[in-house]
């Protein structure tokens, strides 16, 4: 059952990644990108880390993909894609990607990862939170400062010059 699920999620992820690159329609391409990101969330669920999977769904599928869609919909796609397609290039790209994936997979499989067997429980997200608050607190502070800075930057950029309107 787990193997069948793993295969299904792998086919979904890789297939939609190929589709995201190769589709002529930009909107369908970004939908396929959502499929890829969702498939990665499925891998996280299979690895017993639901916490990361939910963040993957909330951040990547829920926010990043929305931004990409939003950008794509404002683009006039006819202006970009007037090129004549070269099928050789397409197949060469797919082939190159498959070769890279197979090579990476072979290296990972050869590294002795198959011999690792573990029955330990999955890491609880409370432990991750505890680690962040004790040992890794400088990283957490840094992330918080960067996030706060970017939010403030966004607020400053989005600020309207209301005074001019009021004078009129």
């Amino acid at each position, binding site marked *: 059952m787990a193997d069948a699920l793993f295969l299904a999620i792998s086919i979904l992820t890789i297939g939609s990644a190929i589709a995201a690159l190769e589709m002529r329609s930009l*909107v369908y391409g970004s939908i396929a990108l959502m499929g890829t990101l969702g498939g990665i969330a499925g891998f996280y669920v299979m690895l017993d880390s639901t*916490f990361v999977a939910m963040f993957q*769904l*909330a951040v990547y*599928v*829920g926010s990043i993909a929305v931004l990409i*869609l*939003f950008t794509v*919909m404002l683009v006039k796609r006819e202006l970009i894609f007037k090129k004549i397609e070269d099928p050789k290039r397409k197949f060469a790209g797919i082939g190159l990607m498959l070769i890279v994936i197979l090579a990476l997979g072979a290296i990972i499989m050869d590294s002795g990862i198959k011999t690792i067997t573990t029955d330990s429980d999955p890491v609880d*997200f409370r432990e991750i939170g505890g680690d962040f608050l004790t040992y890794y607190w400088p990283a957490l502070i840094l992330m918080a400062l960067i996030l706060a800075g970017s939010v403030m930057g966004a607020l400053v950029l989005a600020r309207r010059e209301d005074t001019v309107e009021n004078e009129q």
Partner: protein
Amino acid sequence: MSVIAPKFRLGYFLKGIFDNAFWILTLVTLAGIPTIQIALFLIPLPVINGQLLTAYLAFTWLFNPTMQIPLIKALLYSDLFRIAAFPGFGFAALIAAGTIFVERKMLAKLQLRVGPFYCGKIEGILQLVADGLKLISKEIIIPAKADKPLFWAAPVLFVGTAAAFVALIPVAPGGWVVADLDVGLLAVFAVIGFFPIITILSAWSANSKFPFIGGIRALHQMVSFEIPLILSLLGVVILTGTLNLSEIVESQSSFPWIIFMPIGAIVFFITVLAELERIPFDLPEAESEIVAGWLTEFSGMIYGLVQLGSYLKLYAFAALFVIIFLGGWTGPVFWPPLDVELITEGIPIPNYVGDPILTVTTPGLPLLDKDPNEWVMQQQGELVYTSGQLLVSGVIWFVLKTVGVIFFILLPRGVFPRIRLDMLLHIGWYKLIGLSFVNIFIALGLVYAGVIGPGGIL
């Protein structure tokens, strides 16, 4: 005066009926019965009274009054029942249908109108049925240059996402929830994130200007109000130390969190209004500016599906408010049984020959209890699942609170006008985010002052 069927002949009528019967019989024989037989191989059947329930046995027991209750109990505790009927889709759809009717009648009363009146004898109560039949029987018109696959898929995806949201809502104690996740609140955030995608995709696929403007507005609104929505719930997560929705409800057994987190509750309520596109935040569907917003090109049952999805979403958000801030199903138990000591230890009777201790068994609700003394076992922590009395009182409290919150979500529609887009974004980005940070600091203060939390006073 027109005639309904000018060429009516009894022969044609009978032929039509016989044709239909013939095709139904043929299809059932060729496709229906094999499907059922294949499905029966794959479904794990329950064991009742030491007997494996087979299809024959089920049909036999249906007509045996003593065996009906165990059969129904086995059905009540199955996954299919949870998904389709009680904490899942059927329950939510029932509340959603009630919401639509109450909304129309209540708005009418607020504006000194009558509202639905003629369908059904009592206050137009059959208006919903009439509207549903109308939506089902109407033609689905697809714009000529629309993107057909997305245009068809978007309403189905919308209902599916709303149903996934409903599946995360716990309704009664003892795990009456479809998906009891350890990270339930995060799953809620993940599911909420899908709504703007579906909205903008359906708006784009219609290839029409009004849906597109409405979709862009919906995207702005939903994306900018998601941030205060998430931040306003984090205070409760800090206080309870869990993300599981059932545990959040159980942490409120003595007081609801709205007492300590009123700012978070207010911010969450306003963001819910914006996420649901209700008045005063109904810019995506502003009917006086852009026809019907992103719903403009929908017709027939596609429109019906979107409406069903949005009312399911309304129920789910109201239920989330109840779960996080109002204590969910907690409340006084209706007709609690006798004292625990009377059942476990009994009253000693002096000078009595024989068994000198008087004990009592109080049968609870026969359909929902597995054991007569379940309530006592529940009190003593010997029971994992919940007893029937707690279930009934929990569901009643939950529904009462949810209906109250739904009422307050509906109320602004009769009171407030629509606000401007820049005012909306100003509220979302400046005020609500700031207020939700204030709420988080209040929660942190309560934890560090030792009032609530692990080792706190309360």
